[in-house]
């Protein structure tokens, strides 16, 4: 963390919250408090009433808070006092909230019995409070994941509503927020529950969020799921094909046309939460060069990890036979695909990669190929030296639970709202790789209009130092950019615009900016 000492904060800033804001926050908290109390099996009966009441209180609290915050104000940027508030400036309340979040995630992932999920017998606690809603949707009792999914959706809808008000002058922000709210409510929450309802004794289809694509959904190609899909007839096969096509065909096409934003800030659930509930924390992302370096190493290591893990898992069950694809054939196709991508980058895009990225790519590539080679040379019966099961469970624990949940969301108030997306998400890394090398998307810089004010960099949730590009008159083409468009929104001089255009000339480094002597521009910029 950088030491930003704020020379001007005297602690005398205007009162952080108005009376209405306090009351509405209290209302929402009471709703959450009812849920918390239900953990201790305080008999809230009938459950339907108390569940509806608590959910309604949370929703009403957020709506009221939103009105209290923005209704009396003109449409425009609403960042006043962000750095004066304890909650949004890493103060006392930020740490409290961080602790509550991380605590919740630890219980959710590792101690669901504390929430009332009983391995034998009916639910108790807060899980049982959610039984009526789960019954209504899927016909099954709730699980800790159903509780989590409901609260997650409520957060995206509620804080999405808040975001819509905050940016009511900005159609890009509004459309994008409607989109994440729609995908969360429909694809992530309702459709999987309804799919579950279709399942019976003789028909079992993995029900899941269809837009939760591998490798974000790292368990999508595990044996039990693939078996389910294969046994579920045409619709199952269609799902399997869709799952593979999502990452290999659909994703590259959409990312080429629109940049990775089509997923990360319009569709993805993690992005959806970050953009809505996480919006008040977006400025906390670290903008230093060191953080960028860490990001590149971490996120690409996760990609390597997930590729190796998934290959190993799929290979090991294919190898046991019974599938039309043999384990060996699968391994060879993975190796070929990686080689083709690697060769393409090295031949056509090498000059666009920085030196360290080049070395890293070569390193990873050699590593993966040598592991595969090792297998074929017969030196080990286990692929990649590890039991695939060990790899899978390690990934699930370290990346799936700790990184994306406990750290990713738990630390929103400390490290910002996109820690997972920036440092850990393998999907974001793959999309980013495409965005950097093969996409029409860029953030255009408007000639020489930048005044280096730093709003863009400060409010970039991905920690991109946007200003460093804008003040050089250079377009922003960065693999991590999720295209949220906030930099362009907060820019006071109309300097930034998210665009899809001809890939030629989208990277345009300049030394002398537009507006100066044309001869000087020619002289310096053509060097």
């Amino acid at each position, binding site marked *: 963390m950088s030491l930003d000492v704020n020379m001007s904060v*005297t602690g005398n800033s205007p009162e952080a919250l108005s009376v209405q804001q306090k009351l509405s926050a209290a209302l929402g908290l009471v709703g959450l408090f009812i849920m918390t109390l239900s953990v201790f099996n305080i008999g809230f009966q009938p459950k339907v009433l108390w569940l509806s009441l608590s959910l309604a209180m949370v929703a009403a609290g957020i709506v009221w808070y939103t009105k209290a915050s923005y209704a009396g104000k003109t449409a425009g940027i609403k960042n006043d006092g962000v750095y004066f508030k304890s909650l949004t400036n890493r103060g006392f309340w930020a740490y409290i909230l961080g602790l509550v979040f991380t605590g919740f995630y630890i219980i959710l992932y590792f101690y669901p019995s504390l929430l009332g999920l009983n391995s034998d017998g009916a639910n108790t606690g807060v899980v049982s409070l959610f039984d009526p809603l789960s019954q209504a949707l899927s016909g099954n009792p709730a699980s800790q994941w159903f509780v989590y999914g409901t609260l997650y959706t409520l957060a995206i809808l509620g804080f999405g509503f808040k975001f819509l008000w905050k940016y009511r002058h*900005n159609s890009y922000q509004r459309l994008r927020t409607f989109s994440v709210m729609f995908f969360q409510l429909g694809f992530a929450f309702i459709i999987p529950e309804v799919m579950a309802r279709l399942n019976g004794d003789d028909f079992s289809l993995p029900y899941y969020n269809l837009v939760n694509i591998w490798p974000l959904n790292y368990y999508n190609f595990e044996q039990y799921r693939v078996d389910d899909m294969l046994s579920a007839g045409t619709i199952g096969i269609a799902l399997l094909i869709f799952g593979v096509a999502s990452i290999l065909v659909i994703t590259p096409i959409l990312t080429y046309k629109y940049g990775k934003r089509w997923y990360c800030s319009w569709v993805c659930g993690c992005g959806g939460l970050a953009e809505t509930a996480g919006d008040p924390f977006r400025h906390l992302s670290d903008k230093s060069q060191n953080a960028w370096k860490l990001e590149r190493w971490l996120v690409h290591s996760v990609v390597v990890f997930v590729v190796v893990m998934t290959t190993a898992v799929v290979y090991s069950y294919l190898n046991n036979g019974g599938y039309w694809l043999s384990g060996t054939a699968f391994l060879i196709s993975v190796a070929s695909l990686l080689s083709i991508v690697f060769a393409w980058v090295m031949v056509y895009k090498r000059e666009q990669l920085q030196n360290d990225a080049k070395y890293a790519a070569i390193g990873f590539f050699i590593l993966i190929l040598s592991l595969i080679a090792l297998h074929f040379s017969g030196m080990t019966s286990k692929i990649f030296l590890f039991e695939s099961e060990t790899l899978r469970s390690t990934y699930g624990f370290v990346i799936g639970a700790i990184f994306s949940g406990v750290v990713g969301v738990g630390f929103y108030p400390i490290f910002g709202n996109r820690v997972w997306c920036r440092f850990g998400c393998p999907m974001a890394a793959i999309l980013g790789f495409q965005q950097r090398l093969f996409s029409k998307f860029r953030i255009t810089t408007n000639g*020489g*209009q930048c005044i*280096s*004010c730093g709003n863009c960099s400060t409010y970039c949730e991905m920690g991109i130092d946007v200003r460093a590009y804008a003040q050089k008159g250079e377009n922003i083409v960065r693999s991590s950019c999720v295209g949220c468009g906030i930099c362009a929104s907060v820019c006071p001089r109309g300097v930034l615009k998210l665009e899809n255009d001809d890939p030629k000339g989208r990277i345009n480094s300049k030394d*002398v900016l537009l507006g100066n002597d044309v001869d000087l521009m020619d002289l310096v910029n053509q060097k």
Partner: protein
Amino acid sequence: MKQEHIVIIGNGISGVTLARHIRKQSDKRITLISSESEHFFSRTALMYVYMGHMKWNHLKPYEDKFWKKNRLELKQAHVEHVDVKQKQLKLDSGEEFSYDKLVIACGSKPNKFGWPGQDSKGVIGLVSKQDLEQLEHYAPNNKACKRAVIIGGGLIGVELAEMLSTRNIPVTFLVREEHFWSNVIPDEEARLLERHIKEHGIDLRLDVNLDEILSDDNGKVKAVRIQETGEVINCDLVGLTAGVSPNTDFLKSSTIELNRGVLVNRMLETSEPDVYAIGDCAEQREPIGNRPPIEAVWYTGRMMGETLAQTLCGNPMTYKPGHWFNSAKFFDIEYQTYGWVFHIPKDGHSDFYWEAEDGKKCIHIHFEEDSKIFKGINTFGIRLRHEVFDHWLTQEATVDEVIKNLKLANFDPEFFEQHENEILDAYKKQEVNV
């Protein structure tokens, strides 16, 4: 061989741009002297610190390690005297500091027009880091500062009004002219902005002169008196935002020729050998085109820095800025301008004005009446592309071409409501009427 030592007084956008560009081309020794701040910061963003959008560190465009890495020496000191014969600076510490080439890039200070009481405590400008600290001291909240009065209707005045209103401090805004910023913008735009300023609860008073600033026994401001009506407005803070002027007092003891600013020729050379001046403090002996001799604008400071770097690295270049452009933001309304739009069209020039129904967006175009050549545009609430307008100005496109192709120049975010068709219709209607 000993490297030439270039000393730059001032670490604002002009001086820093110059230093960066010299470093790109050479190994010369470079020192930046400033008494204002240790590191370069974006002056234009001072307001955002007070408003709580950003912290001080966010204003710095380069990380602190940047300077050492690029061998740009920083010296925190105030220059008190320049001895051009000995090529030496006298610093406030008493130290003598030598240079081979000296560049004055010391910026400007708020104008004071000799109002009684103008040096009272709690009378501030909004130019420097110290001004921001003063503001925080005198106006931390609406208990310590029950009302603020701003004198002077320009860009900094409206920024200060916005800043204070974020802390719920009531603001009275005194503008001498009949309309806001009327030495620069036409009345139509001024009226739009006046509505918007009032919408934010600012007590905007036009056509009003400051008579006197009244202070209490401790010498702290307590009220202002208005000349026309004699009205006394109680306040705890007075913001002087009636423009800026070059910060050249420390040069009066030197032989460098001064007028309002440091006089320079097109090579940005002062009257003394090996001494140059750039940015807000430089005054062109002959104004360039429509530009004022002193251009106190971020962009021009940067351009002078880019240009002088060439000269100092052995590739002499005159300061020859391209087409005029500028930008600002008034509360929620963004402003950009390309080419020249004056308060009233010049002789032989005509204009076209369009305003959106909500009264928050407008464009204003000036063009030559006979040839219809496009001369410039003001745009409020609609972002336009610099490159496209720069091209049109170079090509001497006609106003018809510009308005017909306005879509090409739109720079608003995707999915924003577009007004080009409305604008075209309005333009056609005006043509018929003419």
